[in-house]
């Protein structure tokens, strides 16, 4: 069981709701993935005072936890405003906090992120911060009141996978008791399995499923990979060795050269 802000979840996959070929395919993919949390972007859909219309109704009707996100926000102020709007629209105090600092790589602006996290946590929000794998930033987010951390694997939508596994490993080692979710940059099911084998608690993805030729089949594939990686981590992974180790004992030969 995964526990995030007191909510118990059996699925370790969080799925985004953007860029599917149609809402019907999105709904089918979410069901196939078994995800119990879906993220929803508010910024664009509510631009100009709109309420998002029927699309938000589809999301609400899925019967899963909605994690509104502040995608597209470039300042702490914008992100805080978007989070408050999300709280009204979806009647939830959960928010995936995302403050973009760089237009091309969509790298988080960690300074504005910490600032917004402080304000939102003080206001009673349960903040899921999208951050880099920087330990100092992570400490500050925890100090601000975040109980979950979501480091990136690589830039959003890049499908590059875990470009810096060493940083993710040290983050896991440094925060053994904080739920850690790899968010962004995963492209293949094997990337998700790799993140889970590092001992991460869950993964969050969107484009890898929504942009697949068959999003429903890909959602299923990711769910399997996440289960496999998680089970593998807990089963105790073998460390790589330099020399071959025969699986059948070799008796009666001088094997120690």
């Amino acid at each position, binding site marked *: 069981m995964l526990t995030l802000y007191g909510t118990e979840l059996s699925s370790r996959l969080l799925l985004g709701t953007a860029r599917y070929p149609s809402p019907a395919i999105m709904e089918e993919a979410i069901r196939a993935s078994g995800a119990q949390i879906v993220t929803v972007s508010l910024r664009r859909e509510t*631009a100009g005072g*709109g309420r998002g219309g029927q699309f938000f109704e589809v999301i609400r009707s899925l019967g899963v936890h909605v994690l509104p996100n502040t995608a597209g926000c470039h300042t702490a102020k914008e992100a805080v405003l978007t989070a408050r709007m999300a709280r009204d629209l979806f009647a939830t105090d959960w928010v995936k906090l995302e403050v973009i600092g760089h237009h091309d790589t969509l790298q988080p602006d960690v300074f504005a992120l910490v600032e917004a996290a402080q304000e939102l946590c003080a206001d009673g929000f349960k903040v899921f911060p999208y951050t880099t794998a920087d330990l100092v930033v992570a400490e500050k987010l925890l100090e601000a009141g975040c109980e979950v951390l979501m480091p990136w694997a690589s830039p959003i939508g890049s499908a590059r996978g875990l470009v810096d596994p060493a940083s993710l490993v040290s983050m896991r080692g440094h925060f053994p008791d904080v739920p850690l979710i790899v968010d962004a940059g995963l492209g293949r099911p094997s990337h998700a399995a790799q993140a889970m084998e590092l001992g991460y608690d869950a993964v969050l993805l969107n484009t890898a499923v929504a942009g697949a030729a068959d999003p429903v089949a890909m959602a299923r594939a990711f769910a399997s990979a996440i289960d496999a990686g998680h089970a593998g981590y807990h089963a105790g992974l073998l460390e790589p060795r330099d020399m071959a180790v025969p699986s059948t004992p070799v008796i009666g030969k001088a094997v120690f050269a």
Partner: protein
Amino acid sequence: MTILVKGAGVAGLTAAFALARKGHPVTLLDPKAPGVAASHYAGGMLAPWCEGETAPEVVVEAGAQAIGWWECALPGLVERKGTLVVAPPRDQSELERFARRTHRHEWVDEAGIAELEPALAGRFRRALFFRDEAHLDPRKALAGLFEALVSMGAKFLHEADDRAFCHIIDCTGRAAIVPRSQLRGVRGEMLYLTTQDLTLSRPVRLLHPRIPLYVVPRGDGRFMVGATMIESEHDGPISVRSLMELLNAAYTLHPTFGEAEVIETGTSIRPAYADNIPRITGSGRHLAINGMYRHGFLMAPALAQELAARFEAEPQRRSATA
């Protein structure tokens, strides 16, 4: 047997046209002028194979028939020049992905691009060319259909009483988005640019991981640039962000667009079903065509023909049950 077609956008006009051509007396109803709603802001690309990137096969198949339908309905309006798909150097993988997801295209190199669109010479190293695709000017097409309908004796009214008609075909698009209609609105934003310094002969799509864009030449130095896809029913003016993204993309396609003039911006709410596939619904004397999504000009002919075919079959069905 009198038929009332409600809504004079692309769905209503094509439906009325297909019925009138089969000899049915048709009355067209719209509180506004014909062709002023979402259809007015359409790209007018008849690009079924490009759309196949995300659209289901049924849209590709029906869309492929649309090119011939429009050519036949409005001779001289359809430009069969294909579609060119390009990507900036750093987004080349988008082009590979697009190629994998679509068919009926060929790769062209720098020389091939220069031959097709001299204005783009040297700007892109590779492109995908969808030779069989076409485009038309949606505003001229809607006006042309309306004119043809009038000449076939169809009436156009701003208000009418349903009871005076045997059959009602509801093609009211966005107006039909009500609770339990299964329809939702998808906001689209577009703009028109004008410059005499650039000539394109066919629609050009610029792939980008986040902001895909197309530019459709309308002749006389005018270009339609579109279009955003936002899950919202808000129909206020184009947002600064959308305008900026569309203009940036146009500028990436060709810097000459930097000196072009913005002559129009527009927003429309496109009705869509959950699977984004338009359809005929209803029964008896009340039928509806709706959910055109971003495929109005591509899908309306197939639905209009299906509707007309139902009216053909009607007398036989009656005699079978009599």
